[in-house]
């Protein structure tokens, strides 16, 4: 019922990750070079002809350009990325979404499929009833269509696979842990679907059927117990892998899921620190075996 541990008993989660330490690790304010003639890239600043790091991360050099890749950052969008966002604001002809980026992303009324046919003019009535389609708090899956000059993302949902999300569970992880893949929508064999947003938002829900996705209706019926169990277990597997800084994609998640079942762990056991490292080690072993 209650599990209290001393901090000294908790295993280090990074034992699972590769132990090769990156060479040029810097913290904000540390000197990168005193030499002149280098170009100032992202994550650096110039002071008294010296180049300093403005973020904590790894120094990267391409010819004369020096930049620092941050260890932890907000989502840096790219066109074509699948993202999951939460509506924060409904304004004129657009919705504002939180996508874990530096600025709120924008979903224009003209870049969504409205009910009743794909090709339809957006009328003033559509503009007035925007809140009926999507309101504050709603979750949407979408694709990055464009990046504005200020870095804000413009999204679109003009495909049947995107749209409002129904019942399920959202897990937030670091965007850098999501592996880029051909598809970010997976129907997993364990009886649940997963959408891995490139922005680090992972959506786990009961198996999606092609024909119902993409609309603006939410199914509020009770989810069967077996589905819930699969969803909960997947959720805990994803958080466990994320805590150990393991890359997230369908195979790694399924390995974690299978490992947790084979080891006989209960779903709630996967919250415990020692079980988390155990799962991560098992997944890693599985990958090593497959490599051979």
């Amino acid at each position: 019922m209650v599990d209290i541990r001393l901090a000294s008993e908790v295993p280090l989660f990074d034992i699972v990750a590769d132990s090769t330490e990156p060479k040029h690790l810097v913290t904000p304010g540390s000197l990168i070079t005193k030499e002149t003639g280098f170009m100032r890239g992202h994550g650096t600043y110039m002071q008294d002809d010296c180049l300093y790091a403005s973020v904590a991360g790894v120094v990267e050099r391409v010819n004369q350009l020096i930049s620092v890749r941050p260890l932890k950052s907000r989502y840096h969008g790219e066109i074509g990325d699948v993202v999951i966002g939460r509506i924060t604001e409904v304004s004129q002809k657009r919705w504002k979404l939180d996508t874990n980026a530096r600025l709120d992303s924008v979903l224009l009324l003209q870049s969504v499929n409205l009910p009743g046919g794909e090709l339809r003019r957006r009328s003033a009535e559509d503009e007035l009833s925007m809140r009926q389609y999507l309101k504050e708090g709603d979750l949407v899956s979408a694709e990055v269509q464009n990046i504005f000059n200020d870095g804000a993302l413009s999204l679109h949902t003009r495909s049947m696979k995107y749209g409002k999300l129904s019942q399920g569970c959202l897990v937030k992880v670091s965007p850098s842990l999501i592996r880029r893949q051909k598809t970010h929508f997976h129907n997993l064999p364990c009886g649940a679907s997963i959408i891995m947003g490139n922005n680090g938002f992972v959506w786990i829900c009961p198996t999606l059927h092609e024909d119902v996705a993409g609309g603006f209706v939410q199914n509020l019926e009770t989810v069967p117990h077996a589905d819930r169990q699969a969803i909960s277990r997947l959720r805990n597997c994803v958080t466990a892998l994320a805590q150990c800084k393991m890359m997230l994609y369908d195979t790694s998640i399924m390995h974690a899921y299978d490992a947790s079942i084979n080891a006989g762990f209960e779903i709630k056991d996967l919250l415990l620190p020692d079980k988390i490292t155990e799962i991560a080690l098992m997944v890693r072993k599985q990958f090593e075996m497959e490599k051979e």
Partner: protein
Amino acid sequence: MSIAPQLLRGPSLMAEILLSEAEKAFIHHGDDLRCDGRTRLDYRPIILETGLVSNASGSSRLRLANSDVLVGVKVELASPLSEKPLEGRLEFFVDCSANATPEFEGRGGEDLANEICRFLQMSYMSGDTINLSELSVLAGQQCWVLYVDILILECGGNLYDTVSLAVKSALYTTQIPSIKVATMDGDQPELELSEDPYDTKRLNTQNVPCLVTLMKIGNHYLVDPTPEEECCSSSGVVVAVSGSKKITAVRKIGSGSLHPESLVSMLKTASEVGAVVNKILMKKLLEEETAGKTQKVGFMR
């Protein structure tokens, strides 16, 4: 007549988060299986460390999932309150760091801090929890005052419980210097502090209360709500349970109502859960003490 929505919402538990209708439905329908696989009466794992702050008389840091609290206790000599000349006292102060959520910036966290402070004060008021006469040095003239400073570093739901466990752990480790009343110089007594820094005494914290938050979701109630669950629930109770299973204070949170029957059963459950939490916490604190001096883990990991 219209009422501002913030008045209807009642005292806020923490930063409000947004959830969609479907997510709320998903949480509501969870039949003794919550989103993270826990049953209704399960806590998330708790990580505890004491003695992190070297210049405090007692300190602890407690993490419950993503809720992170640092508590320091400082003892000081002061004159006792005139209505309680034979007792020392406890003073609580809660600080919500803006690091926890941007909403705490400026005076944003003040309401929440005051609420937690008041409730802690209330739950320690009962005579069974802590023997305040232990803190008396010289009747009516000098006593120890324990300043309990609570710093909320991160909010991940269930702040009341996290804070109370951290406070209890910090009080458990608090060292109160031994003091002797030396010669009376006329009317003025002279106090002599022991020269040995290890010559200290400790409080009996066996009965110090733990707070148990029960949130009502649908027709059921659950312990240790996540922020998402807090967002789904309209009402709940925070119950202070002492080590001897006694309830020392109760407070309702949220704007919703509670049926008398469910309130009684919630209080009963809370006192049972509280007793278990108390017991396990005391066991762990003893374990850490007997393990002796080990390398402190702290914040760098």
